[in-house]
């Protein structure tokens, strides 16, 4: 295994404002191995999404840089597929066409038409969406939309799968289903994943390492926690597991003792940042009535 498959070194970013530029991140150093599952966790507005967007190439770091497989990242590309919080499917295309758009733009030269068709179908069946190929996003549930969003990214065969609070807008039961699907897929394909979350249980359940971020402005990496739990992981068994609970405790302690989110900082969150959702600590097995925001419905 290559120790430094994806490397962030001395990454910092400033956003221009009317007065002083706003420093969102500074001194972010992180090395990620191939096939590793990394979660980024932190309070709202700490710059988790900004880190992800820098890896994706959607933002350019003001200093430092990102290196993926020995190459510097300086623009977005299909080798770093992004799963967006609000699925970002094209509402005028069917499920199949949405994935097709991605497949066509990545494999135009290397796959024949029939191969592309099989590949689209294969990826949609990976996320258990083969029953709704010809439905539009408006006709399927929030969880299904997110499954299609994941399929679209998997179909691009990215080097790194970037997930920006992928299950944040879903209710707890749907979220649990999708977490299980994601674990199953990652088990089979061995993707390298960087996921943003504000759900402590989700982070512990899914990750190999949890990267905890300090509060902004000028946020940085506070602690990194190795999750040494055997895979495949089972959520019911883990609920009783002392090792699992110890990990949970550690993340919670970081978030609520060492880096309490001062309420005043909420006002300084730049508009492009994550929505103001607080970290959730309730066990994932208890359904929480959380409104599913379907912005593009």
């Amino acid at each position, binding site marked *: 295994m290559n120790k430094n498959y994806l490397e962030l070194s001395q990454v910092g970013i400033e956003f221009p404002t009317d007065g002083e530029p706003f420093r969102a991140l500074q001194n972010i150093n992180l090395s990620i191995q191939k096939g590793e599952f990394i979660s980024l966790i932190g309070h709202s507005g700490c710059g988790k999404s900004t880190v992800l967007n820098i890896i994706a190439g959607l933002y350019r770091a003001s200093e430092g840089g990102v290196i993926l497989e020995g190459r510097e990242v300086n623009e977005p590309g299909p080798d770093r597929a992004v799963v967006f919080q609000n699925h970002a499917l094209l509402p*005028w295309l069917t499920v199949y066409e949405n994935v097709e758009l991605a497949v066509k*733009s990545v494999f135009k030269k290397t796959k024949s038409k029939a191969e592309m068709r099989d590949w689209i179908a294969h990826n949609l069946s990976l996320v258990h969406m083969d029953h709704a190929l010809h439905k539009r996003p*408006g006709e399927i549930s929030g969880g299904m939309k997110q499954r299609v969003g994941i399929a679209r990214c998997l179909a691009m065969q990215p080097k790194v799968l970037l997930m920006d609070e992928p299950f944040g807008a879903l209710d707890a039961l749907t979220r649990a289903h999708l977490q299980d699907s994601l674990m199953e897929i990652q088990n089979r394909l061995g993707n390298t994943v960087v996921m943003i979350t504000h759900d402590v249980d989700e982070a512990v359940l899914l990750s190999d390492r949890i990267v905890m971020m300090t509060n902004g402005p000028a946020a940085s990496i506070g602690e990194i926690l190795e999750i040494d739990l055997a895979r495949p992981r089972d959520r019911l068994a883990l609920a009783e597991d002392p090792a699992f609970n110890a990990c949970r405790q550690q993340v919670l302690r970081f978030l609520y003792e060492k880096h309490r989110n001062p309420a005043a900082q909420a006002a300084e969150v730049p508009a492009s940042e994550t929505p103001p959702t607080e970290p959730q600590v309730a066990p994932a097995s208890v359904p929480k009535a959380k409104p599913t925001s379907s912005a593009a419905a």
Partner: protein
Amino acid sequence: MNAPKIRSDISQRLQQLSLASLLKGLRRTVKNLVLPLTGIVIFLFIWQIAASSIVTSLGQFPGPSDVWQQSKTLVAEHRQERQKADAFYTRQEVRNAKKLAKNPQADVKVRPYTGKATYFDQIFTSLYTVMFGFLVATFIAIPLGILCGLSENAYRAINPIIQTFKPVSPLAWLPLVTMVVSALYVSDDPMFEKAFLTSGFTVALCCLWPTVVNTIVGVASINRDLIDVSRVLRLSSPVYIKTIVIPSATPLIFTGLRLSLATGWMVLIAAEMLAQNPGLGKFIWDEFQNGSSSSLGRIMVAVITIGIIGFILDQLMLALQKRMSWDKQAVLR
């Protein structure tokens, strides 16, 4: 179990149910049919009273009944003219047949009928003139709007020009358009009348702007996530425009097109009056110049026709929008 009793209960319930649904249906009819009709009747009543108290140099201002008479006259004139034309063509045919019978090598010509244009001919002329102007405007406005919506720099460069020309009246453009058409459209065998081109281009100049402005807004307000998706996929500009920009701007483009068509239809009447394009505008102008006792009534018929056609055009655009819209649940009105 007392079966007959139950049955009679059920039938009673059914009767009540059907009575309730009948009442509901009645209420709907009242809402959808009776209310609009009441409005129209009251309007006609007020119009009749107002008209009877206005005396112009061309006689009494026409009330609803005069207008109804005049519309019947216009239909009758149209029929007469068509009959004349038919008679003209049959006469020609007979004459030509005779000629050919005498001498099979004879040079036979069919001359077109050149009687005066009827009211319906004029409506038709107006319709295709406005369509010409509207299509010209659309082919310029949508690409221009997409360009300005996508590029902030293009927007900054072009916006002042748009804002300057947007409020200009068609009457101000008309002399310029007339002169330009006369200067540039010189041909021995013209495919179009100059008056047609002048009116059409004036319409185009005036109905360009709503579509441009709405397309710009539509394109500029594409969901940020979708833009990010296109960047991650590295879509080429043509694919990006085709798959993301145009579909997401479609609702606002259509809003613009509907406003444009309505503007164009209004502008057309003024343009036709001055350019003497043989449509409804010219009809009104000629009746005004004619100044007979029936003129005002005939003009009023034209006014109502213009209104109804404008309404129909808008409904057609709405139907088209519903067909083209990807979001079948959206409420369009």
